[in-house]
């Protein structure tokens, strides 16, 4: 058999999908990505097939399996409920009647103390396997893992209590971890032990997205999380003011060099390296960003709290280029060109960043215990 180039090309091209099929496939993926909260999974993670978010039959299998798991959890919860105990064997009919009443009315089933605001209807917590965390999440191990927020379901896989606290209190986990002084106390496992949490959100709660939870703008869901942590991890913490190194951001003399955002300009945000060869720099880019958002980017880049004292309002476009210095994100990369962050801020945006000490609210963990059995 002789295999010529043309033959290989012909046979391989015979495997190409039709343009219409490509178009349809890409459209389906585009739709799923635009609602990424519902499918926020990674095809090639270490957890195996059960986490495939996926299309067609496999997705149905995953959904059915998840439904079965939740049903089993519900059974376990009903069986353990101290007052309304329902046994599978003796009172199956009662159980089904209760389940159907619940389905019809959307009534909240409490699994723990309920006098502290909203709680999840049903929760399941179990320790992660030995392969949790590590390279999966973006950032330090304490902030690894995956989250999924759907209108009626909250799932956190391989997350530490540290990250759960950050989420519940509206903090940026990676910034907390990189700074190292904003969330203190508690046993070592708080930062290293992973847990898998599945919870049903009451139908009466607003439908939040993963992004809202990440940015601390999902108040009811955050409250449910706080109650969950208090109930199951017996978590107690308090907030206190601590004097620590910060940066003060102030406006320079003269007019600001921030370019106001205009209709049609892209909305974007990026903190990282860009450029080629000798021209590589670290960038803080923004489009349609407020000063508050710019300050968050600066915090990420400097690993230190930044206090905005510019008094500048509005939304802006900017592309700040600099070479990170010791202690800042990106400092470990060789060959980056540009001025220091401080000089760049002054020259490129007419803003001043000054080191100072100021009181900052930090969280102190007073007590945390490994979660109780489901």
């Amino acid at each position, binding site marked *: *058999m*002789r*295999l010529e*180039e043309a033959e*290989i*090309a012909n*046979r*391989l*091209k*015979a*495997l*190409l*999908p039709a343009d219409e*099929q*490509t*178009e349809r*496939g*890409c459209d389906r*993926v*585009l739709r799923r*990505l*635009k609602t*990424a*909260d519902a*499918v*926020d*999974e*990674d*095809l*090639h993670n270490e957890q195996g*097939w059960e986490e*495939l*978010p*996926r*299309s*067609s039959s*496999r997705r149905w299998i995953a959904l059915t399996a998840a439904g079965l798991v939740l049903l089993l959890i519900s059974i376990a919860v009903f069986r353990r409920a101290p007052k309304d105990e329902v046994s599978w064997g003796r009172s199956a009919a009662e159980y089904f009647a209760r389940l159907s009443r619940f389905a019809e009315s959307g009534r909240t089933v409490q699994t723990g103390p309920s006098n502290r605001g909203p709680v999840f209807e049903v929760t399941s917590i179990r320790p992660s396997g030995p392969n949790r965390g590590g390279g999966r999440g*973006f*950032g330090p191990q304490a902030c690894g893992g995956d989250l999924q927020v759907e209108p009626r379901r909250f799932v956190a896989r391989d997350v530490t209590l540290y990250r759960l606290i950050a989420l519940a209190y509206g903090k940026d986990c990676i910034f907390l971890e990189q700074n190292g002084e904003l969330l203190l106390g508690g046993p070592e496992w708080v930062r290293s032990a992973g847990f898998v949490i599945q919870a049903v959100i009451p139908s009466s709660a607003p439908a939040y997205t*993963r*992004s809202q939870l990440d*940015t601390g703008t999902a108040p009811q869901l955050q409250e449910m999380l706080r109650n969950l942590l208090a109930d199951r991890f017996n978590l107690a913490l308090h907030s206190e003011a601590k004097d620590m190194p910060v940066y003060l951001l102030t406006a320079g003399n003269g007019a600001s060099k921030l370019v106001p955002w205009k209709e049609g300009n*892209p*909305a*974007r*945000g*990026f*903190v*990282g*390296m*860009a*450029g*080629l060869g000798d021209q590589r*720099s670290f*960038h803080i*880019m923004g489009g349609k960003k407020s000063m508050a958002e710019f300050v968050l980017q600066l915090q*990420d880049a400097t690993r230190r709290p930044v206090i905005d004292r510019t008094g500048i309002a509005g939304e802006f476009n900017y*592309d700040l*280029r600099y070479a990170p210095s010791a202690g800042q994100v990106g400092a470990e*990369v060789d060959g980056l060109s540009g001025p220091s962050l401080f000089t760049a801020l002054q020259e490129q945006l007419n803003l001043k960043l000054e080191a100072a000490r100021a009181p900052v609210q930090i969280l102190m963990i007073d007590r945390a215990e490994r979660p109780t059995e489901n």
Partner: protein
Amino acid sequence: MPTTSRMPETRRPEFTPEVDDLFRQHSHFVYKTAFVVTRSPEDAEDVLQTLFLRLMRRRVPPTFLENPRRYLYVAAVNLSLNTIRSRRRQVLIGDVQSFDRAQDSSSPVADNPATQRLHRAIATLPPRTVEILILRYVHDYTEQEIARLLGRTRGTIAVTLFRCRNRLRKLMLASAHGESR
């Protein structure tokens, strides 16, 4: 100057206009690549989705900005090869006899035996070789264009293609011989 500003923000899995731009530029290229390697529309969609989810979460190397197309293409080939190899493992563990059914069940075309052999042979090639093979014979890139996209020399591309053709020939012969017995 940055090569591009199209990069989503850290840890915010949002479908930003920048991701939208990248998707429009590269999705067909990625989908077709994944489809040719996996021969399954579902797997091709999964590969495309996984890559863009990573992008939305910024789980990509810093060098991504220098050449997004290179990253997306290389990652698509690797993910697709992993997919077909893991599919093969899962079936072998579960049911040996269903291997061929599983291989062919999602095939978009009724391949002739030679094409099937070619496809099976590709699954055994190193990812770097498959990257070059698909660019050359599926996407019709010239050797120079491949070298530019993948950041290798033209000589490396030519030598790899030559060896790849020889290897495919041997693999296909072995496969045909195995089937005839």
